[in-house]
């Protein structure tokens, strides 16, 4: 079953084309890794499918529901507001810098949206939240505040917060880039374990080893276009593409 289908997405910021016809599909249970140099448009793509930005043209369908498609003139037309909100609920996003709510405890960070948005009871939301915290190995931090946690712990809370909404697909935008190197491991471990549970995910990452190990598919983007996509073995070991080779060789050096 197809969870995400993005077709020919184009997006420009005041005249500069940032996404130049991106097409990506993700099936249920798959993990997609998006790699590429800085400024290639990876974040912009995630922001478009999570409705933090609007596209200029192209088609996005999530869980069979159309978020946006082109009109006859090839210009993007969004669904009505209620549908957009509903489609948004299929999606979770984990940010590079966590964006936890500082005035809420860890527990309330996780329960607030299920209670207010999904109208769950406080008890039910807390049971789910505590189970997620246990899974994130943070049971003892339920009543702590974000400022009392390490970066890695904050990121795990933000993953729990996203999972509490029970999304059909979870997007990660460089989830380890704001962390000290010794803390990236704990986050990658969490994503690995989610992958083993067949959680559908799309991860923008600079961790090439992780992408190779965990992803079912890898997309290599540069300059707003997809240069190459395929199985990790294909991209990381057998690529014939010069730009992919050049990009990957930079990682092998260090």
């Amino acid at each position, binding site marked *: 079953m197809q969870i995400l289908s993005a077709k020919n997405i184009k997006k420009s910021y005041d005249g500069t084309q940032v996404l130049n016809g991106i097409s990506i599909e993700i099936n249920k249970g798959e993990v997609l890794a998006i790699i590429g140099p800085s400024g290639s448009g990876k974040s912009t793509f995630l922001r478009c499918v*999570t*409705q*933090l930005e609007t596209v200029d043209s192209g088609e996005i369908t999530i869980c069979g529901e159309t978020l946006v498609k082109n009109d006859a003139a090839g210009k993007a037309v969004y669904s009505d507001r209620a549908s957009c*909100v509903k489609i*948004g*609920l299929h*999606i*979770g*996003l984990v*940010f590079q*810098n966590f*964006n*936890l*709510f*500082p*005035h809420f405890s860890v527990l309330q960070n996780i329960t*607030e*949206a299920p209670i*207010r*948005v*999904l109208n769950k009871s406080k008890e039910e939301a807390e049971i789910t939240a505590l189970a997620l915290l246990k899974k994130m190995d943070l049971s003892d931090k339920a009543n702590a*505040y*974000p*400022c009392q946690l390490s970066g890695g712990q904050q990121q795990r809370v*933000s993953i729990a*917060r*996203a999972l509490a*909404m029970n999304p059909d697909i979870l997007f990660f935008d460089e989830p380890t880039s704001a962390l000290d190197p010794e803390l990236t491991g704990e986050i990658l471990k969490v994503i690995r374990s989610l992958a083993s549970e067949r959680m559908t995910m799309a991860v923008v990452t600079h961790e090439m080893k992780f992408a190779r190990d965990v992803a079912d598919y890898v997309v290599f983007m540069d300059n707003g276009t997809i240069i190459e996509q395929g199985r990790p073995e294909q991209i990381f070991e057998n690529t014939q593409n010069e730009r992919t080779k050049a990009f990957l060789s930079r990682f092998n050096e260090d």
Partner: protein
Amino acid sequence: MNYQMLLTQMLEATLMSLRIFFVTLIFSLPLGLLVAKGRMSKIAVINLPVRLYILLMRGTPLMLQLLFFFYAFKPLFGIQLDRVLAAEVAFVLNYAAYFAEIFRGGIEGIPRGQYEAAKVLGFTRKQTFFRIILPQVIKHIIPPMGNEFITLVKDTSLAQVIGIVELLKVTSNWVSSAVEMTPLVIAGAFYLIMNGIVTRCFTIAEKRLDYYR
């Protein structure tokens, strides 16, 4: 000097000062929030009049505004506001403009990521503002708000220009008729007590919100 009469009059006048103080706060805080929203609006027909309003309120003396609402309102709009109401209207409108700028600073200081996280989680704009943004704004604007509250306690004395008998007016009546400084000392003490309480409240609020950064 009749000390009992002096004290009675000063206490009564203090009640008037306090009335202006509380009425101003009750109305100008919500109004200030609304004005801040208008000031940040990208729609010109909202934004421009709001900017003009803020400019007028902050760019002219509060005393002039008091005189305006008491003396100029009738010739212009045909309604005579009574003294206290005129004073309250002037204070509310004036302080709302200052509060609006403080709110705006606070709101604009909240990182964009907070809105983005809230949006992706499905919060409505209203929920985002009242549950996520505003509580953080309040923490950040406590120090400048404290300043405004203290200024307001003292500014209530300006109401005497339209004949309102508040604490400082009574005081000046007494010192000008009897050659004695006691009323001045008492008035000073009263203002200090009021502002001492205000300061204490703000210290407590600051402490209470100290649990997060």
